């Protein structure tokens, strides 16, 4: 069959639609699918197998890939794995085309990173709904990326913070996940809470955009007056995010982001700022980020101090149980110490690999989080 020679390599849709790549060794399937997608406003690229798909992805960069399973060269399952393993700044939504009898391949495909599947021969309505699901997920990713970019932008004025935001969100997630298993927090912390704190904790210091350089970037100790100025970052962040939360009450992440930005410097005993809130007057999200933020500050080298070892930092947290920190959070920290140490180690390795990659202009080849062996020797910290 020579049909593919007649198919344009890149078919621009009527509108500037989402980029979709179709991978199938059956040219008739490619034609029917691409016709449907073009008519639906997508920009379409075609590939006859996984190898060709990976080559074309270097310049086409699809947001959604629809792939057959059984193909020569690189099959659909291997393609899913390859896409998930390549460094990418954006998520690619993967849909596998399967026949009803091919459940083994489907399971392998989902395990390799496919997001969804479609039975062959595809039905228009089903494909339309599957694509809408993909679009919804990708738009959420866009929101998450915007939030993190905003946090990064705010942090960029601060010097030498490395992967601080990445660590904060991982630490916060670990602590919240631990609380989720406690009966006391059964009705407070659920999977959505964990997801939200992961999303919003990087915004904790977003108010620092409003702090003058002479205070924010001062290398030495702040005077009492300067410290008062610095403390205002909680109010600036809280007010900014609060205004957004008021305008969009349906967006629960804005409310949590505001709570964290405004109250992560409050202390359990009421000696924090800006409002001297006590105990459970401080939102749980802010209590969690307080622990994450202080642990990170202690274990990170700054111009005015060396990096403390994990043990030294943990000792300080334990001593501050019930004064600076919520006793439950310190107990939760003690339960997840190994995970906290591992995250710190992995992000440190990633950061150095990133720096090396930029210096030498070579592709990054660092494993994803969670792929490092545990436990890590304590002297590594």
């Amino acid at each position, binding site marked *: *069959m*020579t*049909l593919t020679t*007649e198919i344009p390599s890149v078919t621009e849709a009527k509108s500037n639609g989402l980029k979709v790549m179709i991978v199938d*060794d*059956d*040219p*008739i*399937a490619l*034609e*029917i699918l691409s*016709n*449907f997608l073009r*008519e639906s406003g997508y920009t379409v690229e075609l590939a006859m197998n996984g190898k060709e798909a990976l080559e074309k992805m270097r310049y086409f960069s699809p947001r959604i890939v629809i792939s057959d399973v*059984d193909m020569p060269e690189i099959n659909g399952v291997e393609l899913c794995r390859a896409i998930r393993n390549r460094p990418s700044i954006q998520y690619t939504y993967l849909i596998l085309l399967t*026949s009803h009898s091919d459940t083994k391949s489907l399971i392998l495909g989902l395990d390799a990173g496919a997001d969804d599947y479609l039975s*062959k*021969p595809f039905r*228009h309505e089903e494909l339309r709904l599957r694509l809408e699901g993909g679009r919804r997920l990708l738009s959420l990713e866009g929101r998450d990326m915007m939030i993190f970019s905003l946090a990064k932008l705010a942090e960029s004025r601060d010097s030498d913070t490395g992967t601080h935001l990445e660590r904060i969100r991982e630490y916060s997630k670990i602590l919240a996940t631990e609380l989720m298993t406690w009966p006391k927090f059964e009705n407070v912390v659920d999977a959505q809470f964990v997801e939200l704190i992961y999303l919003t904790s990087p915004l904790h210091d977003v108010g620092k955009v409003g702090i003058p350089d002479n205070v924010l970037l001062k290398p030495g100790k702040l005077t009492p007056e300067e410290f008062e100025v610095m403390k205002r970052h909680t109010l600036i962040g809280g007010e900014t995010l609060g205004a957004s939360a008021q305008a969009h009450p349906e967006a629960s992440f804005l409310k949590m982001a505001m709570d964290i930005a405004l109250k992560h410097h409050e202390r359990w005993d009421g000696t924090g700022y800006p409002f001297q809130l006590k105990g459970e007057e401080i939102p749980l999200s802010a209590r969690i980020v307080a622990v994450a933020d202080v642990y990170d500050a202690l274990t990170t080298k700054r111009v005015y101090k060396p990096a403390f070892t994990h043990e030294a930092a943990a000792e300080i947290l334990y001593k501050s149980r019930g004064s600076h920190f919520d006793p439950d959070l310190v107990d939760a920290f003690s339960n997840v110490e190994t995970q906290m140490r591992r995250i710190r180690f992995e992000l440190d390795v990633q950061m150095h690999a990133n720096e090396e990659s930029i210096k030498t202009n070579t592709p990054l080849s660092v494993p994803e989080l969670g792929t490092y062996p545990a436990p890590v020797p304590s002297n590594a910290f």
Partner: protein
Amino acid sequence: MSITSPSIDKVKLLERCLGNSALVEKLRIAFLSSLPSERHLLQDAIEICDLSSVARIAHKLRGTASNMCAIPLSEAAHQVERVARNNEIDLIAERWWDLNQQIEKSIDALSVRDSNPL
């Protein structure tokens, strides 16, 4: 396409192509040109009892036929694929005969261009 037999459901095929009769014609030519070679490949694999290749080629034919709304052909290819995967060598000849018949019917149905497809 002169599709007087039920080998190919022309209404469904046109629907799958969202009413694009030019696309239907393009697919007709492509499918028609592919069927003889697919048949030869299958026959060769059956003659040397290469059941893994039989299953693979039949599977592909089944999918293409299904996309072309050639349901009897797709079903017959599925039967060949199934017996090949199950190593039911004694049933291969019978299923292959059925599939060959369906390939013939499909070629006949696809061979004459219909001036007014629908």
